[in-house]
């Protein structure tokens, strides 16, 4: 799990400084390897031992699996870490809306259409639900294929076909098997048949067993059958059990202790009374395919935003384009608030400003995505930048006064900003939550 340091890698390299890898020295190559910016096979002189060590440390410990075809298909697995702060989580879990095959066709189409069309746009990204899970509750191959047909008739969304009966499964695959649906599920009882279907249709396969040991055993059996695009179904009625299973599977996978558990995780979150809790646990704790009932608007919004948050690369702060942002319809006497281009700071302040109902302007300067506190601390927020921004975004013409409200944490810069810009500086609150009160009491153009 612990990644190798450049110097550890350097000791494994030939130290010839031959430059054949494209780097000037073995040490700089080692730095790139450690940072994942180069591959071991770029070095022609690695011995077998070094290859084994370096190869293992750079290859993802969790199998890559793709579900669906076309635009809405999605990829799972390839995760490297236990905690997102260690590097980042890679592939967002797919949220699959479940319908029973006993549901009337029109209703199935309605739900499928909704899943197909629903989109929530945040920070320039479209967030969507991923696909449909069709449960074979009828036990009838005919009913099941009818339901799959109903889904297929309105959308080419990724699907999960859910039945433990190979006959029903084959009927469903007869309809959509060419579009790489996830087959759910193989057990110790039916795995040979299910593996045959997975191979026949080149589909990924979810497997299920009572314990993790039994599951590891089953995954090995499926691998022997030639099926390696597997998902592990870790569903249990106990959420505590689910949390412990998903945690254990990720630990065993990323530490490579149990390679037979190195597969993405499937969870059926449609659990009575606890669906929200299952979904949250699935998103935060290593789920890759989450099956759920049709979700209300507020819940799906919260779920999609949570998923986006958890799967954002923590090492890349999301930055806002510097500029002059208007809140409401600010007039010439509207207050101007200085802020930084760290997305969290920006959105928080924007939110509180909107809530204050005082039309205002936000002057956002480029602190390379740092918050006010860190920007001040590291010198990334300086008076010269404020002066430049005032000129660049023509603030002088946007308002008739010459007053600038700066964040409370930027108070040490107040004098220098005043000197550099010639604008009168008012030190605002440190907490954006207090901005409404501040504007109410202190702001006079």
């Amino acid at each position, binding site marked *: 799990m612990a990644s190798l340091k450049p110097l550890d890698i350097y000791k494994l390299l030939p130290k010839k400084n031959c430059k054949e890898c494209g780097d000037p020295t073995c040490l700089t190559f080692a730095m790139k390897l450690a940072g994942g910016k180069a591959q071991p096979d770029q070095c022609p002189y690695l011995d077998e031992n070094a290859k084994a060590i370096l190869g293992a440390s750079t290859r993802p410990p969790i199998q890559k699996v793709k579900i669906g075809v076309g635009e809405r298909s999605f990829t799972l697995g390839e995760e490297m870490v236990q905690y997102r702060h260690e590097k980042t989580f890679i592939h967002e879990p797919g949220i699959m809306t479940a319908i029973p095959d006993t549901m009337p066709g029109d209703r199935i189409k309605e739900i499928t259409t909704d899943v197909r069309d629903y989109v929530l746009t945040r920070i320039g990204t479209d967030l969507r639900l991923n696909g449909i899970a069709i449960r074979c509750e009828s036990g009838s191959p005919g009913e099941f294929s009818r339901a799959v047909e109903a889904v297929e008739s309105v959308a080419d969304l990724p699907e999960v076909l859910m039945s433990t009966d190979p006959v029903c499964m084959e009927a469903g695959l007869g309809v959509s098997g060419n579009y790489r649906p996830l087959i759910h599920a193989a057990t110790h009882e039916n795995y040979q048949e299910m593996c045959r279907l997975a191979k026949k249709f080149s589909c990924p396969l979810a497997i299920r067993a009572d314990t993790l040991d039994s599951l590891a055993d089953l995954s090995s059996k499926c691998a022997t059958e030639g099926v390696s695009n597997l998902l592990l179904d870790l569903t249990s009625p106990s959420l505590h059990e689910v949390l412990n299973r998903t945690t254990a599977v990720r630990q065993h996978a990323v530490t490579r202790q149990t390679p037979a558990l190195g597969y993405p995780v499937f969870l059926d979150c449609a659990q009575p009374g606890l669906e929200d809790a299952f979904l949250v646990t699935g998103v935060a704790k290593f789920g890759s395919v989450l099956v759920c009932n049709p979700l209300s608007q507020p819940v799906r919004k919260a779920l999609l935003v949570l998923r986006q948050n958890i799967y954002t690369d923590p090492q890349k702060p999301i930055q806002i384009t510097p500029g002059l942002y208007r809140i409401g319809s600010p007039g010439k006497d509207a207050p101007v608030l200085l802020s930084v281009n760290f997305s969290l700071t920006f959105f928080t302040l924007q939110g509180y400003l909107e809530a204050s109902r005082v039309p205002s302007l936000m002057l956002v300067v480029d602190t390379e995505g740092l918050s006010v506190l*860190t920007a001040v601390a590291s010198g990334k927020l300086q008076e010269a930048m404020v002066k430049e921004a005032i000129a660049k975004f023509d603030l002088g013409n946007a308002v008739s006064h010459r007053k600038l409200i700066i964040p409370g944490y930027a108070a040490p810069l107040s004098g220098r900003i005043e*000197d550099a810009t010639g604008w009168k500086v008012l030190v605002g609150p440190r907490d954006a939550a207090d901005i409404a009160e501040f504007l109410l009491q202190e702001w006079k153009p």
Partner: protein
Amino acid sequence: MPTVTFLPSFRKVEIVKGSTILEAAQKAGFHINVVCGGQGKCGKCKVIVKSGRTEFDHEQYESILSAAEVEDGVCLACQAKVIDDLRVVIPDATLVQEQQILVDSGEIPTALNPAVWKYFLTLVPPSLDDQSPDLTRLLWEIEKSGGPKERAIYAPLEVIRRIPRVLRDSGWKITATVALVPGGYRLIHVEKGDTASHIYGAAVDLGTTTIVVYIRNLADGHIMGIGSSYNHQISCGEDILSRVTYAKSGGGLTKLQSLAVDSINVALTEASNSAGIDREDIYEVVVAGNTIMTHILMGIDPAYMIEEPYVPVVRRYLTTAAQRIGLAVGENSGLFIFPAVSDFIGGDIIADILASGMAESEEISLLIDIGTNFEVVLGNRDWMFTCAGAAGPALEGGEVLFGMRANPGAIERITIDPVTLVPSFSTIHNQKPKGICGSGLIDLLAQLLEACVIDRTGRINMTIAHERIRMGRHVPEFVVAWKDETAIGRDIVVTENDIKALIMSKASVLAACQTLMNKAGIARGEISRIFFAGAFGNYLDKNHAITIGLIPEVPVGRVTGIGNGAIAGANIALLNRRKKKVLDEIAEKIAYVELNAEPAFMDEYTRSCFLPHTDLSLFPDVETKLGQCRIRRGST
């Protein structure tokens, strides 16, 4: 042309109408502070026009000049244009102050293996029996005296032209000078009589602010003379970036190049005068400087180093004839410029490494060179990591209310009585204090922490009732010296904002050290030596530097100041040509770590913005000491 008279010295200079007062002052030989590079932004170049007409828009600079100043005729030298004869006063504050330039390079033990030799030769005059040519005759004699083989020595045309005259005028007793250059042996000089003992070389530290020159006798290695000078480029901008900006302007590079050469020549002259030698007898000049400085010295455009993707034009070492760039030394004398690693890691750092000896040792060393920018090198003879960053000016006394450079009158040492909180201090040249310089600020920070006046984030504990702890105009402050003790008639204080600026500066340095250590997987216990290069490192209290977490905690005996490492390294390379070969190896070996591209750096920085560091286990001895301080404080 109008004449500008500078007061109080009455130095006069003629200048083209429309030139700036700054240009006139430069022509007259004054070194004026131009922090912003002459853009009218910094307000450091204020001068007073006593009589005559200038073109200067006072309104445009009303944020810089007070009404009273305008009334007095104060204007900015970089902006005011000369219209007719002027009388101008340059206030002291406008002139670049003389400061302590670190000239000592310590004792550097190295073998004497220079790249230039002199041979006193007595030639057998030609005869009808022996009609071999003059040159062959001379070169044979060199070979016979133990020098290189006749066929291996190249003789340039200008030397050959001198040979017949010198041989005959001298009665066939001459001294020949041979240098080993990248192309092989080269006959660089022929002169009458025996001058074999007059063989000198110059080592040069070409700094952004100061220049130091050592002249050494290459026959025995002795130091003959030392000279120093301000880098005259200061009048084109104080920091390196404003120099590059200046270089981009029309003719800027040529101007900077000649200012660099002038500065070196001034120092060379001082050194050769003190040595009592003729500059013509200097046969090799070795220069170590940062990458931008050496580019400018060689007249190579530095512009591409400061914009993405930040590439220098050359990285390897450079050689040429010293006179080609205008250095006032012997006609065929060689010039050797140290190689660089990157735009930020220049020959000065390679020189530091050479002087420290870390590149030849198995032990792991950490080398830190602190100025406004800092460079850190970690490694041993097998591997090296390096990085560079901006420490901000606080450690040199900048951006601190009563901060100043290490000039006379600066408080350079402070102790604070832990019980009475009364500070005692010493100043440079024992003058009444004017301000506090970097080493004094480090002491202050460490002592305030030990006295529990500030907490680990640098905030002053205002609940302590003491006359020296008070609310200043904006923020809390601690009084270091009462106004009647000072030379400036005001209380000298350190404010909470000053302390924060210092902590941020020290945090940049420590975070850089930690980042390199993490990158290499080296714990502090594995570090055998910490080398401090540069003036700052030489004067500071090493214990206090560890107490505040400027550097990692190691037993203080492992911390060594190597003084001006750039000049020391240049001296070594001058005396021992074999070390020059090592230089390119060092430069090749070092892996440069770009801190801005290291996600862990900001984290390390935040951890380091604490006294001494957020992870207290990295500073166990400091913790023990501070624990005792708190107990003592609690019991008073």
